[in-house]
């Protein structure tokens, strides 16, 4: 359903993606792990055309994203839902206007129907009675959940999550994990999740892939990743400071 073919992406002389290949099947929940600043968000932004590869191509339903025209891309984007690392709620709008934004623009639903459906989506993520609040009034965990409600508003086929649990306390993180699993099961979506939270990764993944030095160096089921002998992956999942992964400014 989603395919990266030899994708290269650089920012000036910072080579972030260096010939990345990745395949995501329909209905699969894939989790991409990797250290901070390794290009996980960049990878995710390529899936939905927020960034285009310098070289290589990203295919969704066998369409090359960078070759689509604006209308085609917008048609395709309606099949997507994306949860941003920072939630990215529109802070000039109320919670329900955020959730119902795409519905209001892309369907012929009346305002009251949009509000009702937005409340329903909010209920799915466990939020009741905050429809008329402004995003600035909400806690980080609630903002993430509103972001999730907005992402699922149009019943997407593909959900993209950028570090859904980062910055949350363990309980809120667990709530988000459960919601992601629930979305995958109930809505039968394909999902790509970016994280460096291994607990979350083991929980929600069908497949885990590790991004390192601009390519996917390892890919397998949670069980396979847990038992891997690859020293780079081992170091990452065990969270060791010493090993093949170098951290800038730290000598070992």
């Amino acid at each position, binding site marked *: 359903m989603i395919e990266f073919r030899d994708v290269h992406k650089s920012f000036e002389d910072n080579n972030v993606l260096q010939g990345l290949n990745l395949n995501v099947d329909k209905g699969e929940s894939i989790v991409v792990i990797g250290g901070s600043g390794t290009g996980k968000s960049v990878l995710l932004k390529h899936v939905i055309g927020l960034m285009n590869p310098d070289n290589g191509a990203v295919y969704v339903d066998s369409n090359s994203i960078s070759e689509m025209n604006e209308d085609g891309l917008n048609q395709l984007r309606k099949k997507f839902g994306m949860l941003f690392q920072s939630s990215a*709620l529109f802070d000039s709008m109320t919670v329900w206007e955020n959730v119902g934004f795409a519905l209001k623009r892309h369907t012929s639903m009346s305002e009251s129907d949009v509000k009702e459906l937005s409340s329903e989506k909010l209920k799915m993520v466990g939020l009741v009675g905050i429809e008329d609040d402004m995003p600035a009034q909400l806690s980080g965990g609630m903002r993430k959940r509103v972001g999730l409600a907005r992402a699922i508003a149009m019943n997407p086929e593909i959900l993209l999550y950028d570090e859904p649990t980062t910055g949350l306390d363990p309980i809120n993180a667990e709530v988000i994990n459960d919601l992601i699993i629930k979305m995958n099961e109930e809505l039968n979506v394909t999902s790509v999740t970016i994280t460096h939270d291994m607990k979350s990764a083991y929980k929600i993944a069908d497949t885990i892939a590790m991004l390192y030095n601009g390519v996917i160096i390892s890919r397998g089921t949670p069980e396979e990743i847990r038992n891997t002998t690859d020293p780079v992956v081992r170091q990452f999942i065990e969270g060791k400071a010493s090993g093949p992964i170098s951290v800038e400014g730290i000598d070992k």
Partner: protein
Amino acid sequence: MIVKVIEFIGAVIEKPALGMGRIVLLLVSILRGMLKPPFEIRNIIGQMLEVGVNSLPVVLITAIATGMVLALHMYTGFSRFGAEGLVGTVVALSMTREFGPVLAALVVAGRAGAAMAAELGTMKVTEQIDALETLAVNPVKYLVVPRFLAGLIMLPALTIITDIVGILGGYFVNVVLLGTSSKSYLRATWDFLQMEDIYNGMIKACFFGAAFTLISCYKGFYTSGGAEGVGRATTGAVVYSFMTILISDYFLSAWLFR
């Protein structure tokens, strides 16, 4: 040596050239977005209120103060060679041709332009603009077109108001404070004022309105680097808007009032 010189020149012009290219591309997307439905009526009205109505108090004060001080200087200056009778003419011509459009543009660019850069810049660094795109909404059409149209429409409107209020300020100083007869002041105002003065001033205002919104939205749209970046974008928007307004004013005047 020669390679070094060329490299140096390249390095110096690279950034401005890139910026110019992006501004032109932004203008092209704005023009395309303007012609393609859905038309963002609600956003357009909201921005027109923001640019036009909310700028009104500052514009009014600026206009009346300028008209008054202009009339005062002209009166004392012109009385040295007995030309007090021409004060009304000079005030009317200066306001319509020059001070109306330029002052309105500077006030609005400083107020609304800065707000545009800050708002769009914040949306950019908090990924709200990316979020719009993922929701299949063209951010130029949704955010920039309404601001551009508001500048283009409201600045001429504010210019007319500035013209009138400035002339009234001059009238007040000359007639009420300095005792010129009302009839002769008004005659001096009307007799030499031509429609051309007024609508050429409006043409300038349209240009300034388009320029400052384009610059401010561009600065906001290409913000990077968090809160500090938003600050930089806002300052940049005001500085470049002012420069553009003041420099282009000369060339527009030279061209329009041949």
